[in-house]
């Protein structure tokens, strides 16, 4: 009888063909882990699918009905929901379904474009400030000037500035985007500067410098990828706030001009009829604004959690 038989099986040396147990979790890259965690977050995924749904409907929605957003039919004014008009009609007999999804195009376009402009300006300015800080007298001065400008812009009541710009310029989508981005990049710039400042004193950057890496390599391979998470999370919050600002301006009558529709103008148009009980006039644009805000916010929250290494499992 071999001695091995008498040893408790738990303590026997492993034979070659026995697989090691337990710890074989596939090794995942950082982004794979983030995606995995995000997919597990039900609320965030709900937000993601709502966003997807809104985008798809913005693209195909208006062509699902045989009316355009501006077709008037004075015989069908303020009609309730029906097989012909899925979301009812407004006071000029325009189809609310076509208008709602046409409004989605405008609202989403403004939100995304304004957020992207904020991103480009914010990352550039914030990156320069963060990189220049602590690089001799001249660098400090550049950082200082940028920070003073940011501080003052940050102190401005941003919607007031946007409203002023809207009063001055020709009304239209482009104007809204310009007005929103004129002050909107400040938050992103502050964020990126803070991140770069924090990162560039860390050991791995020093190690890269010692190894002789060029500045461009450090920037592209180390600094930017490490700030990426924060930037993306910030983006998921700037898109809804731009959409909100557009609805707000349109609600005040400063945004999109007739016959074009946005959710804000539709809500404003519905104000006149809230007393008569034509609920669908307010309900659909209001629901879309709220759904958009909800979806981007919960998705952003989920993304933030997924990117936080302290919350990794």
């Amino acid at each position, binding site marked *: 009888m071999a001695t091995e038989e008498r040893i408790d099986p738990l303590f026997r040396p492993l034979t070659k063909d026995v697989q090691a147990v337990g710890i074989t979790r596939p090794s995942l890259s950082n982004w794979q882990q983030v995606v995995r965690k995000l997919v597990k977050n039900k609320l965030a995924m709900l937000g993601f699918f709502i966003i997807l749904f809104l985008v798809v409907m913005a693209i195909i929605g208006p062509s699902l009905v045989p009316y355009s957003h501006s077709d008037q039919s004075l015989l069908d004014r303020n009609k309730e929901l029906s097989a012909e008009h899925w979301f009812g009609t407004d006071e000029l007999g325009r189809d609310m379904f076509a208008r709602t999804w046409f409004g989605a195009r405008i609202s989403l376009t403004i939100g995304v474009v304004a957020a992207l402009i904020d991103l480009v300006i914010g990352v550039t300015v914030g990156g320069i400030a963060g990189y220049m800080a602590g690089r001799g007298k001249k660098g400090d001065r550049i950082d200082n000037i940028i*920070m003073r400008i940011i*501080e*003052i812009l940050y*102190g*401005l*009541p*941003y*919607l*007031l*500035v946007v*409203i*002023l*710009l809207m*009063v*001055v310029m020709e009304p239209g989508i482009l104007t809204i985007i310009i007005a929103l981005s004129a002050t909107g990049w400040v938050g992103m710039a502050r964020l990126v500067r803070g991140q770069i400042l924090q990162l560039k004193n860390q050991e791995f950057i020093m190690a890269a410098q010692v190894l002789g890496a060029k500045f461009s390599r450090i920037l592209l391979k180390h600094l930017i990828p490490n700030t990426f998470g924060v930037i993306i999370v910030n983006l998921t919050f700037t898109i809804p706030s731009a959409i*909100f600002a557009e*609805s*707000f301006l349109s*609600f*005040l*009558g*400063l945004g999109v001009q007739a016959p074009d529709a946005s959710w804000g103008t539709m*809500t*404003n148009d*519905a*104000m006149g009829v*809230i*007393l008569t009980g034509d*609920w669908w006039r*307010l309900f659909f644009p*209001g629901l879309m*604004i*709220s*759904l958009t*805000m*909800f979806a981007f*916010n*919960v998705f952003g929250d989920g993304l933030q959690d997924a990117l936080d290494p302290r919350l990794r499992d």
Partner: protein
Amino acid sequence: MTNYLVKRVLMMLVTLWIIVTLTFSLMHAIPGNPFASESDQLPEQILANLRAKYHLDEPLPVQYLMYLKNLVFLDLGPSIKSDSRSVNDMIADGFGASAWLGGQAISIAVVFGILFGIIAALNRNRTLDYVAMALAVLGVAVPSFIMAPLLINFLAIKFPLFPVATWGTWMHTVLPSLALAFGPIAIITRYMRASMIEVMNQNYIRTAEAKGIPTVLIVIKHGIRNAILPVITFLGPLIASLITGTFVVEKIFAIPGIGKYFVDGIFNRDYPVILGTTIFYSAILIVTIFLIDIAYSLIDPRIRLTKKEG
């Protein structure tokens, strides 16, 4: 400390000056003038007189300096459309209603936001927490200009508890204040919950629990004071959003506040009114943020204003 205060006040003045300059140059960058609608009917001489009355015939730099000089004496100039009134009068007129509305809304938001946040944190991952958080998500998602008509629809028309609109008794203030406070309540609840959860896990809370102090006392004496700090930092942006919220809420409820003058000023292209109200709002916002920073250091003695990095 004195040094810091002086620096901050100077910074505030610079910000205000930039706002004035920015709005002034923006306004004059546009073609046309406030009398564009009358210029067909009125003889040239009268138009010239009108321009002279509002000093619009002076070169721009002179107008700018005159405006600044008047501003130093807190004179915001005349309204062009409503002839006999100055912008100061309009602001004085509307301020009562706007301030009452804003003050009431922020009080509701702070009290209920903190209360809901504490309740959610103490019942973490239980029903009450989920209810509070659902409310908070709703508050972030539904803007005030949608909340307001909903409130009118349910609490004034379906169940006529409150008046539909206008201004007068305290009952008139309830719906607009609720519409304004709804978003801020949600934001405060979220922040309060997060920071309360963190505080309640601290060692000094456990010590207090071990000593047998009742939970209510622990929350009041230790919890709130420590958890409230992040909430206070958020009051600045919150007040900014409240101010902009008053534009729509005052418009929807037909409340004679400053927001209404501001919005009307935009549509009438009444430049002195737009400029004056913008400056007024900005000043309020800047001063509030300053006061919040000071309050911050009073509540938490660990924070020294002078060490703060910009």
